[in-house]
């Protein structure tokens, strides 16, 4: 996927709830490329250069790990917040 595509995809998938700010997207992509998590491929379209970003193997592993970490975080938050809520109702 290229940059614009990523931002559109996120926008679509979340029904416009999450808008990736362009100002953060590109620096993050470059940082990830530097760390070897994503790889870049250049495609020349006329005068324009389009860069396609895709996850590398380490990137996929890292993503897996981050997702699990995030799920644990959500789980923790839920355990933290839900009893309180139910307690309030009771």
């Amino acid at each position, binding site marked *: 996927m290229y940059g*614009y595509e990523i931002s559109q995809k996120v926008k679509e998938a979340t029904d416009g709830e999450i808008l990736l700010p362009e*100002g953060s997207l*590109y*620096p993050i992509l*470059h940082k990830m490329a530097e760390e070897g998590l994503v790889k870049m491929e250049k495609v020349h379209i*006329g005068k*324009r*250069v389009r*860069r396609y970003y895709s996850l590398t193997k380490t990137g996929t592993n890292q993503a897996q790990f981050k997702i699990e970490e995030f799920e644990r975080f959500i789980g923790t938050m839920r355990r933290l917040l839900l009893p309180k809520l139910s307690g309030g109702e009771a």
Partner: protein
Amino acid sequence: MKLKDSQIDFIEQDLQERGILFNDLREDLVDHICCEVEQKMEEGMTFMDAYLKAIQPFKKEGLPELNEEATSFLNSITMVRSYINLTIRNILKHKVFSGINILGLSLGMAACFIILQYVNYELSFDQFHPNSSSIFRITNNTVRQGGTSFHTATTFLPVAERAKDEFPEIEDYTRLYFLDRHAVVSYEDRKFEQEAVLYADANFFQFFSYGLIKGNEEEVLQAANTVALSESAVLKYFDDHDPIGKLINLSEEFNDLTLMVTGVFKDPPGNSHLKPQMVVSMSSYENQPDVKENEWNWPFYMNYIRLQRGSNPNDLEKKFPEFVAKYSPQRDESIHELYLQPLEDIHLHSNLEYEIEPNGNAKLVFLLLGVAILTLVIAYANYINLSTARSLDRAKEVGIRKALGSKRLGLIKQFLTEAIAVNIMALLLAIVLVKMFMLFLFRYGGITIDLTHYGGFMFWGGLGIVFLMGAVLSSLYPAFVLSSFQPIAVLRGKLNYNLSGHFLRKLLVLFQFTTSISLMIAAYAIYSQIQFMRNQPLGMDIQNLLVVKGPRVNNIEHSGMPQDPFILKSTESGAAIHGSVSSSVPGIWTSRISNIVRQGSDEGKNNSFNVMGVDHHFMETYQLNLLAGRNFQPSIDTSAFSVVIINESAVGQLGFSSPEEAVNARIAFRGRPIDIIGVINDYHHYSLKAAIDPLLLYPIGDGSKEYYTLRTRQSVGQLEQSLSDIESQWRLVYPDNPFEYFFLDSSFDAQYKADLQFERIFTAFSLLAVFIACLGLYGLASFVTMKRTKEIGIRKVLGSSVKAIVVLLLSDFSKLILIAGLVAIPIAYVGVENWQSQFAFKDQIAWWMYLLPIAIVLFIAIITISIETIKVALINPVKVLKYD
């Protein structure tokens, strides 16, 4: 809808102007914005409106910042810049500390640098000739029947020539005859004394690369009576005029020649064992009848050969005995052994008879090299010591930075940057110091060094690598120590500083002080030994003795007279009190012979004796004591070697029990009887480095009148008058000879020149080592007192006085120095004993000489430490204690 190329160009250029300079990012953004614009234009917007809308979100965040953010991940330049910034701030913040650190390091580097240059110079001798490694000098060891040997740097004239015919591995050869006395050279009405004159084979300038400026290498010395001059000789005789084709006159001991100048060569470099000023063609010399006649008798010629690549000089040497047997006629019982000596080894490793110039001392050179390395190690040790001593100071910084997310690697990088910056500054300062001190030091040390030929890529490259490695190695330890602190421990104020680090620091200081105390003891011992030798009674009086070198052109009308007319006239005129003629004077080599035995016995024929021809005024001129027997009497004792006066050592060596017993006894030299007519006291003919040898004095003949000694009047005012009187007498008696004179006391003292040089250099470096060691001690003292600041505060609160605290702190370091002293004494003792073993007369080094340096160092150290401790001891305890 697709955008046109011109529109894409516009977007790209606009982004660039708005601060997106980083290419990768710009490509991404261009594509992104293009997509956005295309979509908006499809919704019916114009290009310009769509574009402005598309860049709206970026504008809010700021395009230049975006660029910065994107690049900071990728570009370490920013980080490096920050390291350098912090480094500069840190150095400036602690000016005194950084100053001491840089100064100590640069002094060590500069000292090392200077010595290395000298060592490099000494090692570079004679390497400027191409093929220098395949050039050898043929030396000659004459083994006399008695077994005594006489190894000379020279050999017989035909050796190299015959050897080349015999052995195919010899590629080429050249021979030369070096005039060991000055010659007189005249051009028109100018007359000069010329030193460094030599006769050389025609191929001299092809064989050695002295660099001809004028003339042709092959033809310059081809013809008889031709000469090549050095640039400075040309300047002396001809000013700026072209010398080629001019005629000059050379008169030396045996010859009087008119020579045509056919070439000019560059002044020989200082790092050459052979520094000719005037090269005369060998054909003007070797065709004289007596030279031809004596070609296998006179071993006075330098023979150089060049071997073919890959041939082994040892193999060639093995063939020499057979070669000598084949060509050298057996005239006496002596055996001649030939050896090969590599050209490059001559300067440092050769010490033969008839060397062209006094050679260098390999031992001294390598000793200095050791000192250089030691100095550098001390300086780096000191630097490490001082850097880590600041660890407390920086522990908090490290703690906070780590708490804020710095990684250890980043901190190490930071500290390495600082260390390397300090090293580079020290190196730059060292270069300045070298430039400033080099001339001074070499002048003070009395070493002349020709700097036009030192250096070369290997030298500078090697030195660069050494300093780079030193910088990195000495930086690594502080960097790792400083970056290792645990933030929590540090920020709680409970820094458990590394005990092993403290131990290491103590060890470094111990090492530095051991070194500097040993060096000081040695320096004092050297000084005392040299003073001892110079002040010992010599057994004769050399004050007020003027020595004139004997005439080269001996006037036939003066020969056979009972007393030399010059001496006679000088004493008669009152310019001198006494005067004597001799074949040698104290401080100058005498001949040596063996085969002197008591008549009728064969015992001790291998013992060697110094022999010297003197006249009957010798004893009164030198104020020697006649212990028994009588002096020479010109009317009775002819110049033949048939009567001798001997010294006490000779009495002992010949087996007489007393001087009286020796007198009138008969000895024999190769069967020829000799009568002992008198015995004199032992006097030091050479410096006290050598033992007193047995000596035989015989009545001097006309052929060996080498030196004229005159005892001048004592008062200072008269000296000048006496000197000019004596000179005018000389001109009268020997008009064709230059008046060359020296004072015996200073020429005798000149034998200690090399030792004095050694003493000066050694003293300078021991002082430097003490200074650098004190810097290290200062670092340690400031570290320890800082660590104990709170303890000191509490002690003061509890009633301790400032004095008691300073004493407490001092005692710690004094122990360290005393230990260093105890370690240093045996080291210095062994070193001094070893060094003294070369002298025949040794000074007893008093026991307190070993303790004095320790006391001095202790005193300096106490002052150094006091600067820091008194400061801390005076701090009001409230200031240090209120924060806990």
